[in-house]
Structure formats: structure tokens, C-alpha cells
């Protein structure tokens, strides 16, 4: 269930990680976990189980109360300034609340993650078009993000997360507002990224996307690891 042996090719190492929100809300308790580079990993559990907190800890949006977290060999919570910025460019996150800029177009929202790493405008344009095609959003290129439906916003958030070809992709409830066709498209895109070498962690309620999966599935209950099923780390 818990893995404390540090593997040389692991993307994520969590050792006895806890997170307590003030005044005394225990979101995670003593989580130890290792995820390999290139692995697709599912985090499941009921609302409030700690899935989102775990993802936030991995991208340094939150700091752990206790324990050690290493991402790509770096103790991410010790990093600051340019080093933190550099590692964040390698982590794509699709947030549960999307974090889209409502007064910017869909294309601008997706481009933002590539602009910060100074990609060429021609490459950015091409990548944006390509992602919009894959997620059935081609006609929304110049639409303001605030005018999109929730399902569309969800896909834009995912497009932004994968746009910069990150080595680690964290996805929080990627299919919550989607029909089955679009869900298949989203999973197709994530699988593509995974085959290209990205480590992907998906927090989800949606049983349909992990039911027949051969990937590992971690179930959280009340902030603790309840079960870890599926194949061994690739």
C-alpha cells in the first residue's frame, strides 16, 4: 500500500505527507507514495477525501504540514524564484475550478502556459489550433473564456495544462461536465501525452475512465490511503 523505497526513475516521491488546514481540518494523513516517470495514475475517492489537496501539494500550490515531497528529484517546497518557476513550467495542471481568464480568448488562455517559457508565436499558434481540434473546440478559438459552457471551459483548462508539453500533468476531475464522446476525446488526449512520456495523475469520480484501466488506482478515504490497486509502476 505505501511505498517508501526511492526509485531512481520516479517522478514523484511522497513520504509521510500530511496536510492540516487551520483550525484543525486534517485533509491528508501520512501519505507515502511513489509514482514513476511516464506512469498514468488515478486518484479516486469521495468528495473531501483529499484528492485535490494531494494535487495542490504536488504543484506547490499548498505546502505540506509534515513530510517530504519530491517532484522530478526536487523537494518542490524548498524551491523558490527562478528554480520554482522552471519546474512549474514542466508541470501542467488542469484545476477543478479551471482558473481561466474570463476576459481573454480561448486561444490566449491556452497560449499563456507556452508564453512563459518563451515559445515562438508560430509554434504557439500551431499548438493551440491543434489542441482545439483534438478537443472539439476549433470554433471557439476567439471566444472569450467567460462565454463558454462549463464543459468547454473544462476542456480549455485541460488544453492549457498539456500545451507546453509538460513532463508531469495533474488533472482534477477532467470529465465532470462532459458527455461520453467528449470524455473519450479528453482521455484520448491524455493518453497521447502519456505515450509521449508525460507522467499523468488524474483525480476523478468518474468510474468510466478508470474502470477498465490497467493503470494504478489509489483510493483516498478521509485523507488516508484506503487502497492501491492495479499494475505495478511501469
Amino acid at each position: 500500500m505505501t511505498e517508501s523505497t526511492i526509485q531512481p526513475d520516479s517522478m514523484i516521491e511522497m513520504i509521510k505527507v500530511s496536510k492540516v488546514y487551520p483550525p484543525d481540518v486534517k485533509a491528508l494523513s501520512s501519505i507515502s507514495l511513489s509514482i514513476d516517470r511516464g506512469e498514468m495514475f488515478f486518484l479516486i475517492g469521495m468528495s473531501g477525501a483529499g484528492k485535490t489537496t494531494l494535487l495542490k501539494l504536488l504543484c506547490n500550490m499548498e505546502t505540506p504540514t509534515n513530510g517530504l515531497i519530491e517532484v522530478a528529484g526536487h523537494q518542490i517546497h524548498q524551491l523558490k524564484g527562478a528554480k520554482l518557476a522552471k519546474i512549474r513550467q514542466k508541470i501542467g495542471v488542469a484545476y477543478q475550478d479551471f482558473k481561466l481568464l474570463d476576459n481573454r480568448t480561448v486561444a490566449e488562455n491556452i497560449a499563456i502556459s507556452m508564453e512563459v517559457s518563451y515559445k515562438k508565436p508560430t509554434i504557439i499558434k500551431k499548438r493551440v489550433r491543434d489542441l482545439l481540434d483534438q478537443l472539439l473546440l476549433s470554433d471557439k478559438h476567439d471566444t472569450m473564456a467567460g462565454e463558454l459552457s462549463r464543459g468547454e471551459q473544462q476542456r480549455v483548462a485541460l488544453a492549457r495544462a498539456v500545451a507546453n508539453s509538460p513532463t508531469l500533468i495533474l488533472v482534477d476531475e477532467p470529465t465532470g461536465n462532459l458527455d461520453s464522446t467528449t470524455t473519450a476525446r479528453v482521455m484520448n488526449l491524455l493518453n497521447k501525452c502519456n505515450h509521449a512520456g508525460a507522467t499523468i495523475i488524474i483525480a476523478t469520480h468518474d468510474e468510466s475512465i478508470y474502470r477498465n484501466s490497467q493503470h494504478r488506482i489509489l483510493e483516498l478515504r478521509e485523507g488516508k490511503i484506503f487502497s492501491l490497486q492495479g499494475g505495478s509502476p511501469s
Partner: protein
Amino acid sequence: MNFWFAVLRQAGRNLRQTWPSQIMTLLTVGLSVLLFALFFLIYQNMLNVGDKLGDDLRLIVYLQEEPGPEMQEQLRRKITNFDEVEQIKFISKEDAYKRFSEQLGDDRDVLDDLPTDFLPASIEVTPKKNLRSLAQVQLFSEYLNKLPGTIKVQYGQEWVERFFYFTKLVSLVVVLSGSLLILTSIFKVAHTIRLTIINRQAELELLKLVGATNNYIRTPFLMEGLLQGLLGALAGIAALYLIYTWIKLKFSGPGLLHLFDFTFFNGPTIFTIIVISITLCAVGSYTSIQKFLRK
């Protein structure tokens, strides 16, 4: 895409989104520069008047006796002991009579019945032509008054004193308006940038999360500050130049302005004002964005 391209685009976006508050800031900075530069211009021209006054300023020391060569040398030493002076000229009784007679012109016959030595001998002391010498002209006069054989010392005392009180007042106003410029520029620019940051909090947070470096976030705001400083200073100086031209035209006839050259700032002074304005605005902008980045 390189850093500067990305940063310029960000700065352009900021300006487009917040142009009303940017214009208000620009006006405030421009007015502050105008206010400061106006008083500084007056002060600078007062210094010119001081120079001009220095040209004409002489202290006349009337003596009881006409000094012999040895006494002249002693007096010369005594005078230069107090301060360096431009010139010391001894006027004998006879020279004084000649001068007076020349000044009377056609009326010189009124002197016919008077002896040629009825006027006292005197020393004309011309102080150095700088403001320091002018400022202590009263002290100098008191010193000369105490020299042995002095009857009295004369100079345009009242005028000089009034002039110096006025110069002091103007210099105080320059200091105050300078401080005002510093405070308003820093606070107004800092305030505008803070408002921009609040408006764009979500975007800046997101930029951090997707891996933007602090420089990437900070530089567009710094550029805004620089631009505010530059444009504000240019606007302020341009407005002052218009006022200056108007005054020159309005008072171009015989009058006060003909007594001295009313001049505008030279190139280096304008450059310095612009650089100061830019620096202050950049400081204002920097402090605001640093507060956000430290969070």
C-alpha cells in the same frame, strides 16, 4: 519568443486594460513635475539675478583720512583676510571730487565754491560674483565698518536683503515642491500599479502557477512605471515651456524681464528632471509589485 517580446506584449496588454487609471497617473505625475520645475525655474532665474546683482554690487567704505601707500596695503590685507574679493579700489578725495563733478554734468558749477577735497576718501570693494559672497554681504559690511578709520559702509543694503529673503523663500518652495514631486510620483504610481495588480490578481496568480519567473511578472509593471515617469516628465516640462513662452511674450516690453535674462532650463537640467521622474515612478512601481511577489 524572447523575454523582451513577451514582456512588451504584457505591458501593452496592461496599458490597454487599465488606460483610464494610467491617464490619471500620468496627469498627476505631469502636474507634480510641472509644479516642481516651475519653482525650480524661478529659483534658477533668481540665481541669475543674483549673478547680475553681483556684477553691480560694490561696498563703499568711506574713510576719515586718505590712506597712504602703507596704510592702503594694510587695509587691503585686512579686507582679503575676511574673504576673497573681486577687486579693491582706493578712491582719493580728489578722484571722488572728479567723479562727482562728472556725474553732475552741466550742473557741475555748483561745486565751484567748494574745496576739491570736501568729499571723503573711500575704498570700493567688489565682492566675488557668487551667491555665497552675496549672502554674506551684510557680515562683510559689518566687518568693513569696524576697520580703523572707517566712517561708514554703503551698499544697496535694503534691496540686497529683500532679494535674499526672497531667494531663501523660493529655495524653500523648491525643496517643498521637490518633496511633493517625490511623494506624489511614488505613491500615485504605486497606487495605480496596486490597482492593476488587484484587477489582475487572478491572472498574476495563474502566471505564477504556470511557471512565469518573477522577472516575467515584474518587468511589464516596471516598464509601466518607466513610461509614466518619462511621459509625465515630458508633459510637465512641455507645459512649463508653454507657460514660459507665454510669460516671455506677455512681458516682452520694458519691465522686470528686461532687467535680467529670463531663461529656460538647459539640456542637462531637462535630462536630469526626466531621469529623476523616471526613477521615482520606477521605484513606486517596483515596491508595489514586490509586495505581490513576496506573498
